[in-house]
């Protein structure tokens, strides 16, 4: 059983590492957020006495990239259905549960790798984590988040045949989460507005 899960996991890691365009392409959005927002809001945030804006922004951007990567890893199942590879696993003498588990762990690992890349980029951008303990704890949280959302994406993808339909449904599910991250940002802006009023 562990062998089966391992090979399904390994397949996904190999596919990820062999597709540089996928790695680089999915970094575009986080990089945009990290740099554009920190250049834009950073100085104002600091002026308002809130400290380093990147320390506030970076964890959100990391979480966001994990969220997107893991949820959309469900697409691979639909992909495999269309290209026929899924049949190869379905006629094999393994349980459906093992197939789901292997795929979910594979997708989650890819998402965490993606998160770690974004983390490295945020370090370059000037993000300073508070402590190493916090770093390890955050990796566990990253992993748990990734597993949860990969499982969700995998579950939904396994009952769908249509890639476009999957994207629509997932966007509908992700957007509230994504906006909750943004509302935090705008809440910070609001706070700054209020505090600057009082200073005046």
């Amino acid at each position, binding site marked *: 059983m562990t062998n089966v899960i*391992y*090979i399904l996991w390994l397949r996904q890691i190999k*596919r990820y590492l062999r597709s540089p365009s996928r790695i680089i392409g999915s970094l575009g959005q986080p990089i945009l957020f990290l740099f554009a927002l920190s250049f834009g809001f950073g100085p104002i945030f600091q002026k308002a006495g809130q400290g380093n804006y990147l320390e506030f922004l970076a964890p959100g951007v990391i979480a966001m990239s994990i969220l997107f990567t893991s949820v959309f890893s469900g697409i691979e199942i639909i992909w495999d259905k269309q290209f026929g590879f899924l049949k190869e696993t379905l006629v094999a003498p393994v349980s459906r549960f093992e197939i789901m588990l292997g795929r979910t762990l594979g997708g989650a690992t890819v998402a965490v790798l993606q998160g770690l890349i974004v983390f490295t980029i945020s370090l370059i951008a000037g993000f300073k984590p508070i402590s190493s303990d916090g770093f390890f704890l955050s990796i566990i949280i990253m992993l748990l988040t990734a597993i949860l959302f990969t499982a969700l994406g995998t579950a939904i993808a396994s009952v769908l045949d249509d890639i476009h339909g999957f994207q629509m449904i997932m966007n509908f599910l992700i957007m509230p989460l994504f906006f909750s991250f943004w509302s935090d940002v705008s809440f910070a802006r609001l706070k700054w507005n209020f505090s600057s009023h009082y200073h005046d």
Partner: protein
Amino acid sequence: MRRQKEKIKIHTVIIVKNLTKNFNGFKAVNDISFRVNKGEIFAFLGPNGAGKTTTIKMLTTLLLPTQGEIKINGFDPLKEQDQVRHSFGIVFQDQSLDDELTAWENLEFHGILYNLPKNLRHKRAKELLALVELWDKRQHLVKTFSGGMKRRLEIARGLLHHPKIFFLDEPTIGLDPQTRNKIWEYLKNLNLKEQITIFFTTQYIEEAEKVAQTVAIIDHGKIVAQGTPTKLKRQTRAKTLEKAFLIFTGHQIREEEATIADQLRLRRKIWRRR
């Protein structure tokens, strides 16, 4: 009783009785029965949409039958799924390799799914890759392969776990005649050497006639005739299997190619038989 059961197990590897599949009222497979003996090459001949793939799906645990009984290597696909899955290898109609992996990795993936120990897995993979002449290309990504090479790799993969029965769903469709011959060369070779039972579907009449010991003609979900090619020809007093097919089904295998001339020829034949 027990002895008799064992005897059946040895000689007949596929038993299908009154198998039916309904899709929302449409009978894709309609009450078919047949047996395939061990070591036999069995062809399922019919046009597109005749129910060939549906039958293979039911035999290989991918689809539940509406009605009927199936025994694969003595096991019931409904109750003993894992044993059935260990008993057969399959080449699907559509390509089912992982393009982003190498030929070797595809075989490794398969071997691990079927729980083969490492040394056995590697030995067999080497042997099969040599047989289908892909050993030199084992480290290449499958996406760089041609259609014929992919087919050959799929055949090697399907045989990796020493299956008793090998299902091939239109294995030579879309391949040039040379590659087609080559593939049948490998398969016949394996059939002789390892006594593998081969069950394949095809819409090429000449292919069925050339390689199969038994041919079942399926049309609109029903088996209209089955037997050795010689028997089918004798039954219809036709010179070729193609003509026999025409008489059994009343149309050419590729309907778009059937012309008024065909229909006239058919009518003439039916008149002559009276």
